[in-house]
């Protein structure tokens, strides 16, 4: 189907975009890569009066790597991350996860800001942000503010983004040398949304003990979150097969997965177990 009739604006600055957004009184939608929004419009599941295209706003497509971490402009696309040579060392987990994001045609268009705003619980990127302590920078009529990824999502397809706020960048804290990581997900078809997925990283001390583990779940949840009991199970310990199994059990016990057409809650719980165990082995 074709899109419903709507107006289109191509602002040249963030100020202009915020002004348009404020004036629209909730009747406008921001367009970045359009990989979720355009099908939604084509199916007429949403009928906004105005589309505000962020394509002409300068600076939103930059990847900056500094001592503080990795800063991704909101319009950075999956393919930019996938093909970035510096990111392979600056954030290997992020790069590895990109292979799981949909299909390459979608990765050529989809953006990091758009994915966060859409907030699909089965998408890789929101889960990565939650797992990696990302800081989300947003700007609105009252100026800019920073939101921790863990406090950004309010449920499936919903966030704490205020009306007339625009995501401008996402910053992932610096990646220490020697950090261990794993990413595993399971979907029914290659490129589908995950039924369950795990992103994790941890550091180690001189004795090989796990320090500061971060384990996040996607798919088998209503919005991505950390698996605290699973983290607790390995924190301060030297990993072995017994501990990996204990951690996987703790993780699968603490998720609260949905049952839907794609899979039952019980099955997703089993998948969390398998993915978590494999991600730890991968790390």
């Amino acid at each position, binding site marked *: 189907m074709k899109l419903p009739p709507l107006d289109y604006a191509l602002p040249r600055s963030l100020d202009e975009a915020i002004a348009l957004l404020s004036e629209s009184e909730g009747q406008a939608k921001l367009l970045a890569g359009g990989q979720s929004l355009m099908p939604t419009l084509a199916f007429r599941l949403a009928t906004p009066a105005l589309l505000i295209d962020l394509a002409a706003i300068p600076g939103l497509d930059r990847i900056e790597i500094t001592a503080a971490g990795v800063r991704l402009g909101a319009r950075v696309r999956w393919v930019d991350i996938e093909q970035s040579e510096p990111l392979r060392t600056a954030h290997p987990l992020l790069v590895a996860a990109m292979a799981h994001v949909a299909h390459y045609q979608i990765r050529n268009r989809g953006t990091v800001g758009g994915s966060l705003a859409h907030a699909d619980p089965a998408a890789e990127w929101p889960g990565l942000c939650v797992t990696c302590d990302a800081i989300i920078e947003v700007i609105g009529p009252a100026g800019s503010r920073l939101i921790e990824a863990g406090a950004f999502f309010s449920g499936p397809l919903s966030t704490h983004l205020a009306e007339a706020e625009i995501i401008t960048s996402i910053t992932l804290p610096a990646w220490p040398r020697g950090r261990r990581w794993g990413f595993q997900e399971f979907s*029914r*078809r290659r490129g589908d949304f995950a039924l369950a997925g795990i992103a994790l990283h941890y550091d180690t001390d001189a004795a090989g003990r796990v320090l500061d583990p971060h384990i996040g779940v996607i798919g088998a949840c209503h919005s991505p979150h950390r698996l605290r009991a699973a983290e607790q199970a390995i924190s301060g310990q030297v990993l072995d097969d017994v501990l990996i199994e204990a951690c996987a059990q703790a993780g699968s016990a603490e998720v609260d997965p949905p049952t839907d057409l794609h899979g039952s809650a019980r*099955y997703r719980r089993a*998948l969390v*177990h398998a993915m978590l165990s494999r991600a730890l082995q991968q790390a």
Partner: protein
Amino acid sequence: MDAKVIKEEQIGRSVPRMEGAAKVTGRAEYIHNIRLPGVLHGKMFRSRIAHGRIVSIDTSAARAVAGVHSVVTGEDIQRLIAEPYYGPAFHDQPVLALHKVRYVGEPVAVVLATDPHVAEYAAGLITAQYEELPAVFNEVEAATSPIHVHDELKPAITFPDLKHLKGKRGTNIALDYKLRRGDVEAQFASAAHVFEHEFHTQHIMHTPFEPFVALAEPMDDSITIHTSTQMPAYVRLEIARLLGWPENKVKVRTAWLGGGFGAKVYVKIEPMVVALALLARRPVKMSLTMEEQFYVIGKHATTFRIKSAVTADGRISARKCEVFWNGGAYADIGPRVSQKSGFTSTGPYRIEHAQIDSAEIYTNLPPAGAFRGFGIPQLVWAYESHTDIIARALNIDPLEFRRRNILREGDEHPTGTAMRDAEFEEVLVRISARMGWDQPFDRGTGTKRRGRGIAIGVKASIAPTTSFALVNVSADGSAVLFCNTIDMGQGSNTSMAQLVAQVLGTSSERVRVTQADTDVTPFDMGTLGSRSMFHMGHAVRLAAEHAREQLEALCAETGIEYQDEHSIAQAFRKKFGMQAGNIFGVGHYTSRYQPADHDTGMSKEITPFWMIGGTGIELEVDTETGHVTILRMVNVVDAGRAVNPRVVDTQISGAALMQMGATLSEEMVFNEGELTNPSLAFYKIPGMRDMPVAIENEALEAETRSGPFGAKGVGESGTFGVSPAIANAIDDAIGVRLYSLPLTPEAIYRGICAARGEPLVD
């Protein structure tokens, strides 16, 4: 035929697809692209309940929408057509629901507007009041349920063997095919081993990427229907019957089809567009969405109870088959599926005592009909899973067990028809040779377990049917073939052109094939059931031979030696003094057939030819997720002689991969009759990245002596063995046997958990 005039053999040549360039450059014509002045677009309002009497339909809000031309209901249709019921087997389907609705999604009203979006918006404003009736969805329950989908059975005149059902009341059984051979019960009582299992298949949809589209254009005293159909001649016949018009006032034409797979056989939305166009006195176009296709036609869900007696030395002495076909609310061609495929339910085995009960059953679900394989994949799924279970239980190699029981040339099929040109054993031999069946096999380690399996199936061609063809040779020696075989992507135009060229002694590239247009292309029963290469192939061959006889006479008359298109051109010029004139060659073919006896189901000549297909699978199961990776898929078929080997190869892999989707992921999921996943996001068709790691196809070097140039049909054979070969390989890998399709990762994982005594509790 004089061999010396043929410069190059056209049969067996992989002539490039004639429409290939037009399709890949986006210039091929499709019905959807036709623009007619004054056209109205129709959008449907559909039933939201599974079974009920219509109390009232409120169309007032829809009529009030600016841009709406009119809103049409079943009663409006009845003002035009007094008995507005259609269908090839039963006249049971109303153009728009009348008095009752019988499934969720049944068309109840149509809004006509110049803008399709206006029509769709207005259709959303229609409401209906129903007196709800209890509904029945499961095919086994429906067989004996007191809930009846139709009050009375109304068989069409087309099929004599349905006559006995006329006027029958109080039943959902729309056809009850029976086969009785020998005494199965005595065998079960005395056999060394008896095995009994029940298998299930799910509802699936064809999902052609060109959804149903039709455009009706009323003329002064006739009507033209532009439609994406596999059966233009039947559309003409059925529309003429509904309107009470002679056939020559109804013109049906097609363009390229964006896939059919059996969805577009007989009539689908054509009666609706015709009725709407005649009521509105304007052209009307209906173009269904991908989502709406799920409510038009699908593939039968089935329950198959199968029981076999096996001797101490591993021979199947008796087999009893009970097959329940879930036909949905309207019969469509379902009764033909349950009979024409039903009689092969015992499989490609030599079985002296056989009993089959194969019943088409009405339920309150969307209709089911023809679907690539015409019911055979559902049957092979059951009997080849069953066969494998028996072999494993008796500790006989599954290949050896099959070879011990397989039908050989001259053997009698349980129906009483002798096997001719049916290379069952050779198909098994070639699969096993390619797979290295007797070689050691890597069984994997840890959470990745490997297994392999084989399966083989048989199909009879639908019979009796008729094809006509006309070859028009122009004065320059080029030719146009007029035939109603529809090229819906299978490459039939290229193959048919090769037959003409072979006979005329010209090159295939000098033959063009017209699109079907019933005003000019002669009758053909339809493009379905892999019948075209055999039936139309014969008609085309005969038409070309008829043309050649006349061309040879023309050459003789003009003193020119018949050689090729150049000599033909010379003869025309000499005869008419310039490049002028035509030669018309006509041909027709009707297959030989002897109807099955009503009481025993037996016949000495039940099919003009047998189709055979087998598949070997090597796969890996992830025991922690249930995910299956197909490492290798080997498809071998007996297609007789391959007219165009490249086309045959793509038919085999296309069929096998389509069936792979039906096996692993596709399923229409119903909740109290309501389809919960009518969208390609939720209905899972495999993508390019889900293909087997390796796939190899083989068409045996074989000859069908009764076929044109030794050929027979191949459009479906690749589907037959896929599902059970995968299930057999899963069992081989992890010792888990599954009895219901689809074999989703979750179903497999649940099987793994149950097998180790820890079933998943929800």
